[in-house]
């Protein structure tokens, strides 16, 4: 299983790295927010508050649409060609998901570098911990995205997912903290797992490590990862996926 995962991962990373424009394009929306909205936000807020939100926006947009690749693989018969090999089904999922994580890592580094140029100053430990949290969250999102892509109508996947991530991003309080929202919206946003991760990242970027908010963010991320991988593997195991 580990070997098959590694084989698929290496192959996938090779393909991904050849598409440099694709990696940058996947990060273009958060970068635009950083450059064209950040300067307004920082008249009353801080970069350390905004950038965590933009990282979650990046994760949702980039990993949420990861399943788009599998739609092509399914349609072209490549997925089925791999499903008749003895490779473990979990490896077929993990090899791809880990490759998506590499994309997310590169995109997050790009976003952080530009943010640094604009004035983000976060402690190294906070950045590193936040980074790990984002990568685990990204793995979950990619796995879920594959599950959705293999379950729903292929034509609908791209429009539905690119629309679905918008409320998820807004409800996470990515652009403006939910503490500014009216009560009902604030309550609603507590249903979004991403809110907890954004708030944990904000604490981490401000150098507050052992807070309840960080604990909640870590817990939500771990639970989401376990649930997503279970769902993803079940879908990959299913006969007609």
């Amino acid at each position: 299983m580990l070997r098959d995962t590694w084989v698929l991962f290496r192959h996938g990373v090779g393909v991904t790295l050849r598409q440099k424009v694709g990696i940058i394009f996947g990060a273009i929306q958060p970068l635009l927010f950083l450059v064209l909205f950040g300067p307004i936000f920082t008249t009353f807020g801080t970069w350390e508050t905004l950038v965590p939100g933009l990282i979650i926006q990046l994760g949702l947009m980039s990993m949420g649409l990861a399943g788009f690749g599998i739609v092509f693989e399914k349609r072209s018969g490549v997925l089925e060609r791999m499903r008749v090999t003895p490779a473990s089904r979990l490896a077929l999922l993990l090899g791809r998901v880990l490759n998506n994580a590499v994309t997310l890592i590169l995109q997050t580094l790009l976003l952080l570098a530009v943010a640094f140029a604009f004035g983000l100053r976060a402690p190294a430990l906070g950045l590193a911990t936040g980074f790990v949290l984002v990568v685990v969250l990204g793995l979950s999102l990619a796995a879920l995205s594959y599950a959705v892509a293999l379950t729903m109508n292929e034509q609908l996947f791209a429009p539905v997912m690119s629309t679905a991530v918008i409320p998820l991003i807004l409800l996470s309080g990515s652009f403006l903290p939910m503490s500014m929202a009216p009560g009902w919206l604030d309550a609603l946003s507590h249903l979004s797992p991403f809110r907890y991760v954004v708030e944990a990242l904000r604490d981490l970027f401000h150098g507050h490590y052992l807070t309840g908010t960080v604990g909640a963010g870590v817990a939500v991320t771990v639970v989401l990862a376990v649930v997503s991988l279970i769902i993803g593997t079940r879908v990959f195991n299913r006969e007609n996926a």
Partner: protein
Amino acid sequence: MIKTSGLSKTFDGGVEAVRDLGISVEPGEIVGFLGPNGAGKTTTMRMLTTLLRPTSGTATVAGHDLSADAKEVRRRIGYVSQGGGILPTVPLKGELELQGMLYGLSRRESAARAGEVLAGLDLSGLENSLGGTLSGGRRRRFDIAFALLHDPALLFLDEPTTGLDPQSRANLWDHIRALRQEKGTTVFLTTHYLDEADALCDRLLIIDHGRIVAEGAPAELKTGGRTLDDVFLDITGRSLREESALTGKGA
């Protein structure tokens, strides 16, 4: 090489695609699975290649039980689906190597094996092309190359020559025959084409409405100077040619 008993598949919604199928294929045979669209050919094929779980019944494929030992079955079979499995924009070499590695070969073994298989299929020198740039016949041979990397004892081909020009079809038949002759590979293929069934197969299984309705060597089925087309019309009440014309698959 293949033995099924009571193999059935009922899809959600109650469609009985395959009913109580009992077939047997001996090592080294080239067996044609013939039938109109929707007869259950592809469903049977997908069950025998571990892609679809049977609703009931049992099958032994390449010496292993289909449901209990799917992984061992996968090690020993090659499968080429109707649409093939080639990405139009990716160089084939890397894809072939990956496929071989998923069959357990090392990168080096996989590359060497890909070279051999491509040479056997007259595809040497094309491994750096993109899938989308190949002609139909070459593309189909690449599909087959992907299925031969692990030297399977049993090869499943779903409509291998559909959409190919007559020359490419004849060429592909030669390759399939050579495979059996040189490696003793057992081949189980579905086809719409009666001439293909006649020219290539040792034995035919005719399926209609999910059941086997006739079985035998092409010569046995064509007794009394009838063509396979006549035989098919007699058995199913439909002409395979009309069927093909209706679905645009050619005959």
